[in-house]
């Protein structure tokens, strides 16, 4: 029953975004609905003068800018209200607009006054310390562009009318600014025997995760996202950032860090963010996000025409830099190397582009990412063969395909996850 409701609500969202996407892409008064029916969209279209050079402007300087009234961006909100997905197929470049960053929270978004917020560091340290947000901003600041991805970032039940946003929109990229964790470790006098930290959030779940020492040299305590204070849903006023690690380890609304020589075995890292593997065991502290890519154009809900198409997408790896992304236009029989857009940053979304001269016959296009360790993004079949079907809830990074139909319609290449 629950499953049915879920599915139908997802389909509604899919169809709705299909209409929005088509109207935007076509730029005409006629668009095709997901079912192929032609629909009038002119009545929904805001008014604009035929020649803007011949009218006095209505808009002058404003205190806060807004998007064009002709553009509509929406996160795909899950019916439970605990997550939403970035519209990857609507975006260009590699930075996610802050209000389109994906969300995942376990007890809603807390309302926090930054002036009253504090962060306590204690446990295996010489000097337990309390920092206000202003204290944190006095330390030397560091900015880093990297992705944050939820380890559950795969929609398994998906029909042909599914967008990249629906499939894997729980990855987003920002420029994060804050203080290096290592700077604070020196302030508190971290004991050499400390090997784990517990990060605790200030949400109603008081969410906790253990984070191993291996990542501490890259971890940051961040208070800004794309130049402004972090959005409430992304951790305002301060969050942990563990580049390349599964998103939930970058604890939001951070209020406390406790140092220890053991992991704390919280609910999230035992019963939740773990996955069963082939040997009858469950893999735990599987924090690093493996390399992945997704084509973001052309995909559902686009339509394409015969001739040159620039296939575009993003590739990323929690292990480091992307070194190559390959594209296949014949369903994986042959692969060609796509162009990567500079700068290619470590643990960051990297844009790839590949020119394809489409002959108008049905074709399936795929992409696969390769990172600096030589890791190659696997197929769904390989993932299931190596890990078993039980691993599926988390850390799935399958090669994803899109079917270009002879008429120009583009749909998701459905994969059965069992």
């Amino acid at each position, binding site marked *: 029953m629950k499953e049915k409701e879920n599915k139908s609500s997802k389909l509604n969202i899919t169809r709705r975004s299909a209409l929005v996407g088509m109207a935007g892409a076509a730029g005409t008064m006629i668009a095709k609905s997901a079912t192929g029916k032609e629909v009038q969209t002119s009545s929904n279209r805001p008014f604009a003068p035929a020649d803007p050079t011949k009218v006095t402007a209505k808009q002058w300087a404003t205190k806060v800018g807004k998007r064009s009234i002709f553009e509509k961006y929406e996160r795909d909100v899950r019916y439970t209200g605990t997550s939403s997905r970035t519209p990857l197929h609507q975006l260009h470049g590699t930075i996610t607009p802050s209000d389109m960053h994906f969300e995942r929270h376990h007890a809603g978004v807390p309302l926090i006054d930054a002036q009253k917020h504090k962060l*306590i560091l204690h446990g295996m340290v010489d000097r337990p310390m309390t920092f206000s947000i202003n204290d944190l901003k006095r330390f030397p600041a560091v900015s880093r562009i990297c992705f944050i991805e939820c380890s559950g970032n795969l929609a398994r039940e998906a029909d042909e009318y599914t967008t990249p946003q629906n499939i894997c929109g729980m990855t987003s990229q920002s420029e994060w600014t804050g203080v290096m964790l290592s700077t604070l470790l020196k302030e508190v006098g971290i004991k050499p025997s400390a090997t784990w930290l517990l990060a605790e959030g200030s949400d109603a779940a008081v969410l906790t995760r253990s984070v191993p020492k291996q990542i501490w040299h890259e971890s940051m305590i961040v208070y800004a996202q794309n130049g402004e204070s972090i959005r409430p849903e992304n951790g305002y006023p301060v969050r942990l950032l563990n580049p390349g690690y599964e998103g939930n380890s970058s604890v939001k609304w951070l209020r406390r860090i406790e140092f220890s020589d053991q992991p704390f*075995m919280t609910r999230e890292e035992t019963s939740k963010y773990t996955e069963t593997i082939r040997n009858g065991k469950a*893999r735990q502290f599987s924090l690093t996000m493996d390399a992945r890519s997704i084509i973001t154009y052309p995909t559902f809900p686009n339509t394409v025409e015969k001739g040159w198409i620039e296939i575009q997408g993003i590739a990323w790896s929690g292990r480091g830099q992307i070194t190559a992304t390959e594209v296949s236009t014949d369903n994986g029989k042959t692969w060609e190397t796509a162009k990567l857009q500079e700068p290619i940053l470590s643990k960051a979304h990297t844009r790839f582009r590949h020119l394809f001269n489409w002959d108008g016959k049905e074709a399936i296009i795929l992409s696969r990412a390769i990172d600096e360790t030589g*890791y190659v993004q696997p197929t769904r079949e390989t993932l299931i063969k190596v*890990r078993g079907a*039980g691993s599926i809830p988390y850390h799935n990074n399958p090669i994803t395909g899109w079917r270009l139909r002879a008429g120009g319609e583009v749909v998701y290449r459905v994969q059965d996850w069992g």
Partner: protein
Amino acid sequence: MVPSLSSAQQKSSDNNTKSDIEEILFNFGRPATTEEIKKWNLDVRPDGTGLPLGEGSVSEGEILYATKCAFCHGVSGQGGINERLVAYEDEDFPQGIVACGFECRTIGNYWPYATTLYDYILRSMPMNAPGSLTFNEVYALSAYLLYLNNIVPDSTKLSASSLKEIVMPAHDKFVPDDRLEYNMVH
């Protein structure tokens, strides 16, 4: 035009600028007080560290569960709108879990530590009044949920010393991540 510095100014400037922040202790912030640490430091570890004084029984837990938990988790830990808390008989680890999927990961077949149950209920539950349960109530609810999962008998009364001794069915099922030892899918 950049004004030139006298040699004395130059020297003073050198003393006040360091490019290597590793060398500096900034002393921003303030020492954390014992009271503020104690107020938030409620986490409970598998060895029992952090378990507070108190106790609670299965029968007390049954009443608390009915009034504060059953609305979301269903009568007897199943059939509710939120997570099922009790494993069915055929849901052993791992076959039963793999066959059924994510929702079959329950306290009885997938939680490796009973201490985590205490930690989680205390910090997060119930959803409509988070953090409202007393230490004794959390012991009672932990006892009741362990009883529902056939891990303890119905006569059980839990405290710090007895809770940390409980060995959960999934205790030996977890292994650390070894994917990074490979540069292929693993």
